[in-house]
Structures are given as structure tokens and as C-alpha cells.
């Protein structure tokens, strides 16, 4: 199993500012994933964070808006840049528990972001 510490747990931000979310895992993992979950909705994959290379973004998400860092095998950050109210959402980091793809995913507690 993997224990994920994600922070901040929640924040209220002014539009036009940026917020960096941190994700710390208690073990080394190859791939980390960032999801967005809008209120009452499902989880949408933003990007896959790979150590030693650029993140891989899903359709509809771009690096300028959601820059990701992955400095080592236990840590990643997601920045939500130039925020607008439409960015209000829960952001979750996730890791695989073992050998992909036949393994469960573990999630951080999430960051509840409100943009005003």
C-alpha cells in the first residue's frame, strides 16, 4: 500500500493568482497522477507526472495552466495558474500500488480549491 500526504487540504484563492499543491508519498513510485473532481462529478485525469521527464497532459489540459514538477520518486507538485472561478474543484494526486496496470490506485485526501 501507499500513504499519500497532500497539502493544502483546502484553500480559498483570489482569481488571477496561482496555487501549488504538494503530494508526498511514503514510498518510491514510478508514476504519479493528478486528477480534478468538480463538485458532484467524476474524476478527470489532468496529467501523469513522470520522474525525470515532462508530465504527460490529457486533452483539454495544458502545461501553462497546470505546470507539474516531479523532482524525485516520492514527490510531485501541481500548480493551478492564473486561477478563475471555473478552476474551483477538488484536486487529487494518485499513485499505483504496484506493477501497472494490474494494481490498485491510492489517492491523497484531495485539495478543495475555491476561487473567488
Amino acid at each position, binding site marked *: 500500500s501507499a500513504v499519500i500526504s497532500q497539502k493544502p487540504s483546502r484553500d480559498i484563492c483570489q482569481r488571477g493568482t496561482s496555487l501549488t499543491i504538494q503530494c508526498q508519498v511514503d514510498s518510491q513510485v514510478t508514476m504519479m497522477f493528478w486528477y480534478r473532481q468538480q463538485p458532484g462529478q467524476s*474524476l478527470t*485525469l489532468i496529467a*501523469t507526472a513522470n520522474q525525470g521527464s515532462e508530465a*504527460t497532459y490529457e486533452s483539454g489540459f495544458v502545461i501553462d495552466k497546470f505546470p507539474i514538477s516531479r523532482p524525485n520518486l516520492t514527490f510531485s507538485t501541481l500548480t493551478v495558474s492564473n486561477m478563475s472561478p471555473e478552476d474551483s474543484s477538488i484536486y487529487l494526486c494518485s499513485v*499505483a500500488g504496484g506493477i501497472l496496470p494490474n494494481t490498485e490506485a491510492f489517492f*491523497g485526501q484531495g485539495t478543495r480549491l475555491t476561487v473567488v
Partner: protein
Amino acid sequence: GQQVMQIPQYQHVQEGEDFTTYCNSSTTLSNIQWYKQRPGGHPVFLIQLVKSGEVKKQKRLTFQFGEAKKNSSLHITATQTTDVGTYFCAGVNSGYALNFGKGTSLLVTP
């Protein structure tokens, strides 16, 4: 790309009634996973199905994977208030990330 559809979106039952949620994929899945998310919480893994026609049970929960590996279901027998939450199915995409269905929110009234 792979799309995972899930129905119903909401289900409200009386405690003791059964509950079923269905998941359908536009493509054949290598495996399918089920997660539960309690209100205000994060998704928690329930089970993974890999084999065609596979059926797995966890106490009152029964999970099935279709013969064609394109659909799955979760059935809860005699629901309890502790079953409240949103149940998601998820297929694995080519990048090894999970592709979640829209989820079924279950409300159980005592």
C-alpha cells in the same frame, strides 16, 4: 479514446433494499476496478476484475465482469447506511492511468 459509462447516476434506497450499478466501456478492458468515495472523502479501492466473466464477492457486495470484458456491475445486497457514497468503476487507459465512470451516488435511508 476509451469512454466508461455508468448508470444510474443516483439511487435512493431504503435500508435493507438491494442496489446495483452498471458500468459499460466503449472498448474492451484489460481489467476494471471499483472504488467507493464517501461524502467529503477520496476514492478508496474496492476490487479489481481481470478475467472474462469473473465474479467476486466481498460480504454483501458482488462484482461481475462481462464475458466480452466491456461491462461490469456492482450489486449490494441488503444495503446499510454505511454503504452511502459514490461508487465508481474505472478502466485502465493506455497510459496506465484510471479512466473513471461518472459514478453512482447511493443514498440509504434508515
